[in-house]
């Protein structure tokens, strides 16, 4: 099963991953069903799918916030299936939808970066990382965003807008160049303008560093235009997987039709997707 773990060009391998939940009423919900996936280093993967398709659950199993019931998660050749999330952050970083979940809101931007740096090193010593080092790292990542955040390192992060916090969260997630970056609808809580800016900032940061990225989004057009590979999930499995030249020939409408067909013409799911993607 781990045959490919020696393949150095793969940054992420999921093999037979399954996650079940006991829903209220004691029925068993299979959120992710025997899912296998291999991602080449440096690929920018977009994941789309209706609500409840298992996208967040998949990312959580890679980040370690949820442990897989079955299957293996291998990141850059290392089997991390049962490692707790705090031990995976050298390999995997994750940005969530809610800005409050990505930064410690009563600390300053600089203190958040100090924590993130200490976390990457895997040591939280009884002294302060030198402010110069923290600022240099923060400025290097924040300046290219063009949002003026590098001049506001002393600001309490809870006082920033959602868009600013998400941009900083992506920058913090880039620290130490993790093998895999996970973005879970990280612009979904933002207004369209901020969403576009954070998307642009995100792409610049990960492309510059060549970080392998899985991004969950509801914006089909963005997914088609920017990603190297597109996955569509339905009921805990991957139902569409396109990349390269195939990707450029597809329109959002095609995707919707393929999706409607694959999901057994389930109208509600198809319309949900249509709603959230500006044609």
């Amino acid at each position, binding site marked *: 099963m781990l045959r490919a773990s020696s393949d150095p060009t793969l940054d992420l391998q999921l093999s037979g991953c399954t996650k079940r939940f006991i829903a209220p009423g004691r029925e068993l919900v299979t959120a992710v069903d025997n899912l296998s996936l291999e991602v080449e280093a440096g690929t920018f993967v977009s994941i789309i799918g209706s609500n409840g398709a298992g996208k967040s659950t998949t990312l959580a199993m890679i980040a370690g916030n949820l442990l897989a019931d079955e299957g293996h998660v291998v990141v850059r050749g290392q089997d991390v299936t049962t490692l707790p999330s705090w031990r995976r*952050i050298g390999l995997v970083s994750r940005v969530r939808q809610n800005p409050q979940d990505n930064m410690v809101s009563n600390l300053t931007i600089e203190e958040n970066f*100090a924590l993130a740096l200490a976390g990457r090193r895997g040591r939280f010593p009884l002294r302060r990382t030198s402010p110069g080092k923290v600022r240099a790292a923060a400025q290097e990542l924040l300046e290219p965003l063009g949002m003026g955040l590098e001049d506001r390192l002393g600001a309490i992060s809870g006082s920033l807008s959602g868009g600013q916090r998400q941009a900083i969260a992506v920058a913090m997630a880039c620290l130490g160049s993790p093998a895999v970056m996970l973005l879970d609808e990280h612009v979904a809580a933002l207004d369209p303008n901020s969403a576009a800016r954070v998307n642009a900032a995100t792409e610049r940061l990960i492309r510059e560093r060549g970080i392998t990225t899985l991004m969950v989004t509801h914006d089909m057009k963005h997914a088609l235009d920017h990603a190297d590979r597109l996955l569509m999930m339905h009921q805990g499995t991957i139902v569409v997987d396109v990349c390269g030249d195939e990707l450029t020939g597809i329109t959002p409408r095609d995707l919707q039709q393929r999706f409607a067909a694959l999901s057994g013409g389930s109208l509600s799911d198809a319309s949900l997707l249509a709603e959230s993607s500006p044609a």
Partner: protein
Amino acid sequence: MIWNLIEIAVQVGLLYVPLVLGIYLAMGVMSLPDLTLQGSFGVGGSTAAVLTINGQHPVVSLGVAMLAGAATGLVTVLLHMKLRLNVLLASILVATAAYSMCLVIMSSGNLSLFGTTTAFSWADGVGLTYREGTILTGAGVALLLVAVLLWFLRTDYGLSLVATGQNIQTARGLGVRTELRQAVGLAVANALAALSGGLVVHNQGFMDVTIQNGVIVIGLAGMMLGLSFTRSSRVLPILVALVAGVVVYRFAVATSLQIGLNPNLLQLLTAAVVVVVIAVRSQGRSWLSTLTATGRRQSRIARTRYYEEDRVASFI
């Protein structure tokens, strides 16, 4: 007379500074409702009493008292981590057990420290009154603790503690082993509570197992008063405000007793202080605005919003 009251307030208040800092660390920084602190106060008091009677140096007896407090806190953490017990429930159990532990440590219900060398005996040797010695010792301890906490909470380790108290998921996402931080945070908080117990026992010259009763509310009153003095979220203003809060609280107590309050009503007064401070903080402005129709509408909306956002978490 007022000067006398202030002196009493400072003298007694400073002895409770470690307790208030411990409560702030557990509840304010770590967001853990840890009632073990009450038991640790008693355990610290009994340990310090026994060691002092056995002729140990005051610093040794207070130091061992702190270790005993930290161990008490760690029992709560172990129940939380190993049995996955809710912290509030675990701490109620441990605080209850700690009451018996005090009796075991002392092998009686109360002990007199008459004729022993306590942390306050040095005043006599240098020609200071007992009260002056108490204030100087208390101020020294408070200053030291504030300085240490100020330094600690700004180190990388301290920041990881703050992050854990704010949002466990976020902290883990930053690479923090949160369960370990909770253990360290509660151990330190309980060591502080035990130090307070030891200081109080040394100062009053006797230990009675009942000194821990209701002590958590005394600490809460000091903390809530103190936090009402500052709106800052930075560490230094908060620590200074906490010290001020507990002194002001003791001033209110001393004044009430002076003007003839029945000592039996003291616990009631303490609880009332907490409630009033919270009421003023959360309702102060809206109470004034209920004089107008729009104001009443606003406060009704605010109340509905609170009920809508209310959440419960099962203990068991």
